[in-house]
Structures are given as C-alpha cells and as structure tokens.
C-alpha cells in the first residue's frame, strides 16, 4: 500500500517532538491494515495533535477542544464502513473527560490515540490532567496540588474493551496502533511522548524514563476481557430493527354533537397520582369526538405521587386563539394541593360556573354553584377521582355528555385498562348526585 501522508503538507512539529513519530507510525499502521484514504476518517482535537488531519490524505474532521469523540461517534454510527481514528492530547483528555467515559461505556468501533506529553504545549506549557505533581510547568504551583490522571486505569474502569499504554519511542509502535485499528470495538492507545518545546525545558524526561514509568505502572496492554461485549453500532442496529414502528397518530372522528354551543373552559385541580392529566386528555378527546377544537395545558411538580397536578382544558367550536382560561365553566376540585395552587380561579368564577368538589377538600369562597361528591363513599381510590368526576360532569351534561365520554374512553383505552376505567365511570354515572 502507498503512504497516506499528504506530500504537499508534510508533518511540521517543533524539533524533537514525539508527535512526528506517531504520524509515521499511524501511516504505517494504515498501510499494514491495507486501507485507502477514502476508507478512513481522521478526527482530530485541538492542540498539537489537532494538526494530524492535515498531514494525511484521508477524510478529515477537525473540531473543538475535547469533543473529538463526540464527532467520531456520530460519524462512525452513520458511516459504519469507515475506519474512524481520533487523535487527542492530554489537554483534550482533561477537557473532554465526560466524553471519554461515555465512549468507554459505549464501545463504538473506533480508535482513539491519546498523545500524552504531560502538558499544554500549544499555549505555553501549562499543566494538564496528566502532568506529574512534581513537574515544573507554566501553571506555577497549581499542578503540585493535583493528582495526575492515569488514563489506562480510568478507561478500563469505565468499560473500554481495548486499552494500551505505550511509549512513542518503542519499537513496533505501528503494530500497537494497527492492533487497535483492527480491534472490533472502542480501542484506546495512549502514546507517551516528549514535548521538547515546553515540557523538557524544565523537566527531565527521556524515552528511558518513559519506559521505566510504564514498567512501574505495569498495565496490561490489549483487549480487556472483563469489558468484552458486542460493538455498540451493531448492537444498536439490531435492537433498533426490532422496535415497533410508531404508527401514524390516531385520530378520533367527530361523530357526535357537542353539549354546549359556546366555548367551555374546564380546570381540574388535583394532586399527583390522581390521573389528572389522563382525565384532561379524556375530556379533550370527548370534545374532539363532538367536533370541538381543544387545548390542554398541564401543571405539576417534578415529584411523582406528591404535589399538585392540574389540567386546564378549553373546548370550543371555533379555533382557539388565546389558550388561557379566564372564567372557568367547570372546576373539578379534587385535592387541596391543586386548589391551593390555583386559588384565584375561584374568584373569577360566577354563578354560571359549576364546581364539583370532592368531599373533604376545602375550597375558597365562591359565587359558583358547588356540587359536593363523596368519592370515598363510592369506594373509589384517589387515583380514580378525576375519571369519576368526568362521569359526574357527563351526568350533569356540563361540557360533555355520556356518549362523548364513552367515545373518548374507548378511543383512549383498550383491554383490561378499558374495563377498569369503564367500571370507575359507571360508578360516577350511576351512584352520584
């Protein structure tokens, strides 16, 4: 195979920089695997390793600092046939830490080369996530306070299925990179190197010291058997193909006549767990079954089964412009929490407003007509009160009637759930008022 080095833009680094060795080794690895330029996408980060993409005749993507793995992941998932190789330095490793962990957990079939030279070379030699505590760098005393990150241990702990830490000066660097490229999954090669422009001006670091450091750490290079698992893209495509297709949103036909001719505004004041939102949807569907336009707005806290839950519905024969309730036609007061949250709505109610008040729930003084319903006496659990209250509305022919409600319920529920809801609604229809 021919070299993929871009002859019109040959590698240029500071004299003695370890990066150039990696460029040559990567080129050799591509040749060893037998890849053409258009089978490769080289994705580079910011910093000196960010120059890599310009030195090769391959597809190339150069982006923002620390984000290289996000672009690489998007490319590989959309173009699984490409060999995606990402390069970053120890600077990108630090700033993109969350992306590194996510990539290790995810296992997309791509290769990451981390060119670790222990400092931010391009900006003047400041400390990075891997700078030794005792090093003299352009960050003053700050690096003395931090413990350097050991990429190998972190990546393995995060689930990377292939991890190698090597010296940029060792024989067979190209083989180490080649093995990672051939690995079917996410593979990281950490390549330790020397930054003569910045780091070794004030710190002693030689290929021998790097070798000794690697030997002292004693990491095992190659596949991590504990993290072996299916490749993400293949597994994704397999699982995705098994997902049920989302059918076109189901419409409800307008087969009934509405109860009221004018716009009707309903507010359901309940608490979380009372199926207030579901009751609101049923009310909306009931209106739509009678050809009405509907808007529904909900208000609830982030807690589940605690706090207020409110649904506001507008049902109108005309298109609804301003989707906010001023004077309600019906208020369902089903829980203190909801009533407290919307106290002022009772001030705006007048004698044309119907309030259905669950007994035991206190409401503010109001001019509205109040109908108290004892849901407990009907042996209904709190989760069924909102649905039962719709039945009470249907019985009163307030906003909806029985056929509208029944049509909505049959549209919304199927099977056992339908039977359960019908049971609740029948109690509301037959045993109240």
């Amino acid at each position: 195979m021919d070299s993929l080095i871009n002859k019109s833009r040959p590698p240029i680094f500071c004299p003695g920089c370890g990066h150039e060795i990696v460029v040559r080794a990567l080129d050799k690895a591509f040749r060893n695997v037998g890849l053409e330029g258009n089978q490769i996408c080289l994705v580079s980060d910011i910093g000196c390793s960010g120059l890599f993409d310009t030195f090769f005749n391959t597809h190339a993507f150069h982006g923002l600092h620390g984000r290289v793995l996000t672009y690489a992941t998007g490319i590989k998932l959309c173009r699984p046939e490409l060999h995606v190789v990402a390069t970053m330095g120890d600077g990108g490793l630090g700033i993109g830490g969350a992306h590194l962990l996510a990539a290790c957990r995810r296992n997309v079939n791509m290769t990451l080369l981390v060119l670790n030279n222990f400092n931010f070379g391009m900006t003047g030699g400041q400390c990075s996530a891997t700078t030794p505590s005792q090093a003299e760098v352009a960050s003053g005393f700050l690096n003395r306070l931090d413990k350097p990150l050991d990429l190998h241990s972190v990546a393995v702990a995060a689930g990377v299925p292939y991890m190698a830490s090597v010296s940029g000066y060792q024989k067979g660097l190209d083989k180490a990179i080649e093995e990672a490229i051939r690995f079917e999954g996410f593979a990281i090669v950490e390549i330790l190197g020397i930054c003569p422009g910045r780091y070794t001006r004030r710190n002693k670091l030689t290929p021998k010291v790097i070798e000794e450091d690697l030997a002292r750490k004693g990491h095992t290079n190659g596949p991590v058997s504990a993290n072996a698992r299916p490749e993400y893209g293949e597994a994704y495509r397999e699982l995705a193909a098994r997902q049920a297709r989302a059918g076109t949103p189901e419409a409800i036909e307008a087969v009934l006549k509405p109860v009221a001719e004018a716009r009707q505004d309903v507010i359901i004041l309940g608490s979380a767990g009372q199926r207030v939102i579901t009751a609101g949807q049923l009310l909306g569907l009931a209106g739509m079954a009678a050809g009405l336009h509907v808007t529904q707005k909900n208000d609830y806290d982030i807690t589940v089964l605690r706090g207020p839950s409110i649904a506001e519905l507008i049902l109108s024969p005309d298109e609804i412009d301003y989707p906010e309730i001023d004077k309600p036609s019906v208020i369902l007061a089903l829980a203190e929490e909801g009533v407290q949250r919307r106290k002022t709505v009772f001030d705006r109610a007048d004698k044309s407003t119907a309030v259905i008040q669950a007994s035991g729930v206190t409401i503010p003084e109001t001019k509205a007509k109040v109908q108290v319903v004892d849901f407990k006496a009907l042996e209904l659990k709190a989760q069924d009160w909102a649905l039962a209250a719709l039945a009470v509305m249907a019985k009163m022919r307030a906003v909806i009637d029985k056929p509208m409600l029944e049509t909505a319920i049959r549209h919304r529920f199927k099977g056992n759930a339908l039977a359960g809801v019908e049971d609740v609604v029948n109690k509301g229809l037959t045993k109240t008022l």
Partner: protein
Amino acid sequence: MGLTLMEGNEIIAWAAYEAGCRFFAGYPITPATTIYNTMLRLLPPEGGIVLQGEDEIASIGYCLGASMSGWKAMTATSGPGISLYSESISFAIGSEIPIVIVDVQRLGPSTGSATKGADGDIQFMRWGNSGGLPVIVLAPSDVADCFPITMHAFNLAEQYRCPVFIASNKEIGLTSESVDFAGLERVPVVSRLLAPDGQPFVPFRSATGSDVPYFLPFGANTLVRQTSSTHGENGYITTDPAAIRAANERMDRKLTANVDRFSYCQEEPVADAETLVVTYGVTSRAARVACRELNKRGKKVSLLVLKTLFPVAQNVIRRAASNVKRVLVVEMNQGQYALEVDRVLKSHQVEFVGAMDGKLISPSQIMEAVSG
C-alpha cells in the same frame, strides 16, 4: 376528518421525520424532553439513530458528525442547553454544517423555571456564537404551526448549510391541541446540493451561481475535509486576509441576501390602521384576539406575526408598517426583538409591550397598550 390531541414537541418530531431527519441526539431537559421521547419512537425502527448524549455538548457534537456523514440531524433543548451548545453552533456556522436546533424556551435567567414559558432566548439564538455570523431563527406560533416551521427549518439548513433554530416555547411545546394531523401544512423536502461528478471537489467553494458550497459526505470516494479553524476554500487553514474576508462575507451574504425567499409571516392588515402590532411565537395568539376585538370596537390595528426572526425580514416589516404611525412589539421578554424592529423602522415610534414573568401576555394587556 379526525382530530388528534398532540403537543407542539410531538409535532416537531413528526415533522422532522417527514423532512428526512434520521439522526437525533439530545439530553433530557424540561420542557424539550418530549421531542427526544418522540424521536426515540420514530427513528430507530426506520433505520435512524437516536442518542442520549452524556451532556448537551456531546449531543450537538454527535449531530455535527452525523451531518457531515450526510445525514439530516436535529437536537433539542432549552436555554441551559443552548448555553452549552454555543461552541458547536459557532462551529456549524463557520464550517457550514447543516443542523436543526430546537430551543423550547423556558423562563430564565439560567436554570430559571423549567415549566414556565418565555421568549427570553431570541437574541441569544442569534448571537450566542463566536464571530457573530448570521443564523436562521424560525418561530412557530402554535402546535399545528410547528409542522411547516420544522420542515422549513430542515430545508433551510440543507439549502444554506447553516444552523437553523426553531424558537419554540414551553407554551407551545408542552401544550396539547387538537390537530388534523393528515391535513397539517407540508412543504416539499429539500436536500443539500451534492457536488457533481467529474469536477474537482473544493469543499468550501461556492456552487455555480450560489453562495453555498456543494456538499460531499465523509465516506464519499472523493476525500472530504472539515475543520473548525479559519480555512480557505480547500478546507485547509489559511492566514490570507483576502480569503478570510471573502469567506466571512459569503457566509453572511448567503443568508442576509436571501431572507426575502424565506420571510415567513402572517399578516392581518387593516386599511387606514394607525397602529401595527408586531409579534411572534405563542404571543401571536393573544395579539390576534386583541387586534380583532380592537377593530370590532373601531380602533384600527394591523397585525404582523413574524415566523422568520433572523435574519430580520426587513422588507416584510417595512411594508407592513408603511402606512402606520405607531408600532408595538409584543413579546415574552424584556424587549429583545423590539430592538430589531426599532432598527429597521427608523422613522417610526416603536414601543415594546411585554414582560418576563412566566405568564402568557393576555389580549387585555395588548388592548390596553394599543389604546393607551
């Protein structure tokens, strides 16, 4: 004709799907999460991809990789997420990567109120990038409107190779409305222009008769270069001021010179009106009620609802205001778009009406302001 009860967020997802979007990455955030939920139902069974990013920065990064691979990509978030998107928005602008970004706005500043609406990010969408080159911002006004606006957003992202924002609002995204789903407005789907065979591919050179370069995806036989650094037409770093200036002027011009082609709006002009109400988004619903009521009462008011917010549809605004004395800009913030209208209408009295308190602006507030 049957009706379906759907949220604005669901409609955006469905419209994205119909516009050809097959890649979505997002991070859950109220009030935008149901876009992600719906995309997760829609795309994977159709060969599409949905990812939940480890954060918003990653989510938009995945989208940029996907877009450069030739896929139509979208992400969705709210104000706090737009903040984190910023560096990648700049990248997509300067490197001409098509992407649709939905901002379901919530009350700010900062984390603000997750379930309260606002239009507080309008200028943030326009200017929240380094370099300040233009983007496209479209604003739907209700649930049904989310459909054509989203399709336009994809078409424009493809046609002009830039980020396109959908400036939604909690009051649209999380409000359910009865819609005739099959009857929603659909527009023909546009896709990016691929480089013709048999010609040398220069990744950032304008296509003939256009200010937009041809596209080729990663994986094409021809090698494709993409970079966030200042680049020449060949996609390599350049320091040549003439080349840099030409590229920046071209990227500015490709949007600002063409805005008349995508100045979406709705007008309710009234003959001899003294006042023009200009608004956008969910506030247009209250404005419509207010203007109709005022006209009924004999106070003549015209209404202009803007759907294209950026680049500013200057000709539309000037034409609509040509015969009025007074212009009121009504919006759910502290007067962000009023600045644009004021800039465009130099000889008019432009007043701002609005507030940022988590509540919709009511028709009576607008009527008072017009009458006052």
